[in-house]
């Protein structure tokens, strides 16, 4: 089932989105979003909101942020034509290469932006949560860059499956704190980071890694990640000679997807978010929040969540730690409810196969999260031959080697088309 708004309301909210009016002053994207946080954190959120208003679009901040994106992150990231994959699929395939950004994924755009903000707000230390470890690594690097101590909360299950990233975070100077409570994945890590923040709301800056949580995070993360879509739009015009017919991005919390989609919302482009279909359709077998969830409040926002009839949030399954989350950013919930973006899912097996195909045809080892976007784009291409498509290649797959080594390379897959 999906949650849809009445047509007139949907159109009005979509128009408001295109005019840049959402979130509203209560942090709402239509019915979604808001700020559901413990009273102890309310003053901290008000300070953060004030800080975002003051600094985010300030010329001095933007100059510093743009310089860091250019000289330290390595932006703009490339737009890559994928001729051999195009031949396999029958569509014209282009890749937006966030895997080429410093630390190996789009996460760094947000991490360096928020680290600069934390510095301006006078934070004494930074905390962050991480699922796949990419946001943890990005936060550790960004905090080292601006000179702030950093602690990263990470579920024990994720620590095991993303071991290379744990070591990277430590080498970049962060404390990695194993979270043994709850589901021991991303959701538990966010709960634990919030608990830590409550102990020192004035001194801690919480560097949230996705477009989720209470206002102003979904807005702040979208603004910092929109560089992906802004660059990609111009690069498509310059390199491909025009905009794509369809754009695909994987969605866990949804930060790379909102960053890619937001600048394209006003264009005549089919936008498709791909969630983790896991091993099946049952509750607990996947992380397809938008495709199968219902509205509720989780970790600060009213959004689509995976829950049972009693409002208990359900555990998820995905082969990719970065998509293994029971909620989703509230703006995605709105974009789904208005019908502007379509959200689908790809399962573990198809995503692994797509990852392998991309390796073999284009020499790009993509992240398991990103592989979900390829899996669905491949299927879509079979129904839409001749179209031009863009895939958000949100991160690289080096971190996934502990998982990938369990699935041997299929013989002959590198033997050419």
């Amino acid at each position, binding site marked *: 089932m999906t949650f849809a708004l009445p047509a007139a309301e949907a159109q009005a909210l979509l128009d408001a989105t295109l005019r840049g009016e959402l979130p509203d002053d209560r942090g709402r994207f239509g019915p979604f979003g808001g700020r*559901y946080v*413990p009273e102890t954190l309310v003053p901290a959120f008000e300070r953060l909101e004030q800080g975002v208003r003051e600094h985010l679009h300030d010329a001095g901040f933007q100059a510093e942020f743009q310089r860091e994106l250019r000289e330290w992150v390595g932006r703009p990231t490339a737009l890559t034509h994928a001729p051999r994959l195009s031949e396999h699929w029958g569509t014209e395939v282009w890749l937006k290469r966030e895997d080429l950004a410093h630390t190996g994924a789009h996460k760094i755009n947000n991490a360096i932006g928020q680290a600069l903000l934390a510095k301006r707000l006078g934070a004494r230390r930074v905390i962050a949560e991480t699922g796949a470890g990419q946001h943890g690594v990005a936060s550790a690097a960004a905090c080292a860059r601006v000179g702030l101590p950093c602690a990263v909360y990470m579920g024990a299950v994720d620590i095991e499956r993303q071991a290379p990233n744990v070591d990277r975070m430590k080498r970049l100077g962060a404390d990695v704190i194993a979270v043994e409570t709850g589901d021991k994945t991303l959701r538990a890590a966010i709960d634990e980071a919030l608990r830590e923040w409550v*102990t020192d709301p004035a001194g801690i800056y919480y560097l949230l890694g996705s477009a989720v949580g209470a206002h102003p995070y979904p807005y702040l993360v979208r603004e910092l990640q929109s560089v992906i879509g802004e660059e990609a739009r111009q690069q498509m015009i310059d390199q491909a000679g025009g905009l794509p017919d369809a754009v695909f991005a994987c969605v866990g919390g949804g930060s790379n997807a909102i960053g890619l989609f937001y600048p394209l919302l006003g264009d005549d482009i089919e936008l498709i978010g791909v969630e983790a279909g896991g091993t099946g359709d049952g509750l607990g077998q996947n992380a397809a929040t938008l495709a199968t969830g219902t509205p509720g*409040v989780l970790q600060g926002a009213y959004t689509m969540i995976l829950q049972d009839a*009693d*409002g*208990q949030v359900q555990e998820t399954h995905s082969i990719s730690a970065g998509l293994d989350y029971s909620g989703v950013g509230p703006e995605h919930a709105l974009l789904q409810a208005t019908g502007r973006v379509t959200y689908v899912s790809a399962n573990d097996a198809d995503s692994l196969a797509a990852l392998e195909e991309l390796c073999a045809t284009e020499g790009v080892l993509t992240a398991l999260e990103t592989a979900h976007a390829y899996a669905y784009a491949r299927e879509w291409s079979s129904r839409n031959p001749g179209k031009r498509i863009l895939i958000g290649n949100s991160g690289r797959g080096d971190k996934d080697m502990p998982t990938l080594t369990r699935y041997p390379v299929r013989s002959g897959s590198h033997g050419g088309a």
Partner: protein
Amino acid sequence: MAAHERLTAAIRAANSKGQPALVPFLTAGYPEPDEFVDTLRAIAAVGDVVEVGIPFSDPMADGMTIQRSSFEALRKGVSLAWIFDELEKAGDLATPLVMMSYLNPLLAFGYDRLAERALATGVCGFIVPDLPFEESSELRAALEAKGLGLIQLVTPATPAARLRMLSDASRGFVYAVTITGITGGGSGLPDDLADYLDSVSASTELPVCAGFGIREAKDVANVGAHAAGAIVGSALVEVLERGDDPAAYLESLRS
């Protein structure tokens, strides 16, 4: 008398006997669902108001003890509907109840149905730790329609103007969180507690109950000198966890 006024009256009644009101907290259905009603009765016999915790999958304001009890109760099938059924079976306990729940289970249950069942089962108010005042109008309206109270939390981080706003909005009592932190912390009560509780008490006509970090008789006495009541949560849940007598533990806090 509106249901929320029963809370105020019960706290005042304890104060008129020269003692702070004792507000014990238990996670509903923990450690064993089939012992819930008996445990609740035993606790209600000593407490002046009893706080019934609704287990939730993401208790972000709670420490390890209440998290553990919450996950265990969920694992054994405890739900809000089940809790109301059990409260109905328990009948009138004489001691007014408040429910402590994160928002999502209440949202899933439906606010109007929630208010109806609460009123019918002796629940006089709600404490919702992830629902700040700004997001609370719908739940507040549904509760007020039945005379039930939405109890506001205030904390040492709450600025003065906000403290006055929250105190005005609160019903039954004002919940003063003693520390900047989560439940079940080991660091005890802060040194500047007296000034903080005095400032909260000065902000409202309602009684103020202090919670977080209260474990022993001296904590209750300490808090009682500057607030109308003491809320005992994690320490009592630990007693239940060990299988000790909750009533005896609560009596020991009064000595």
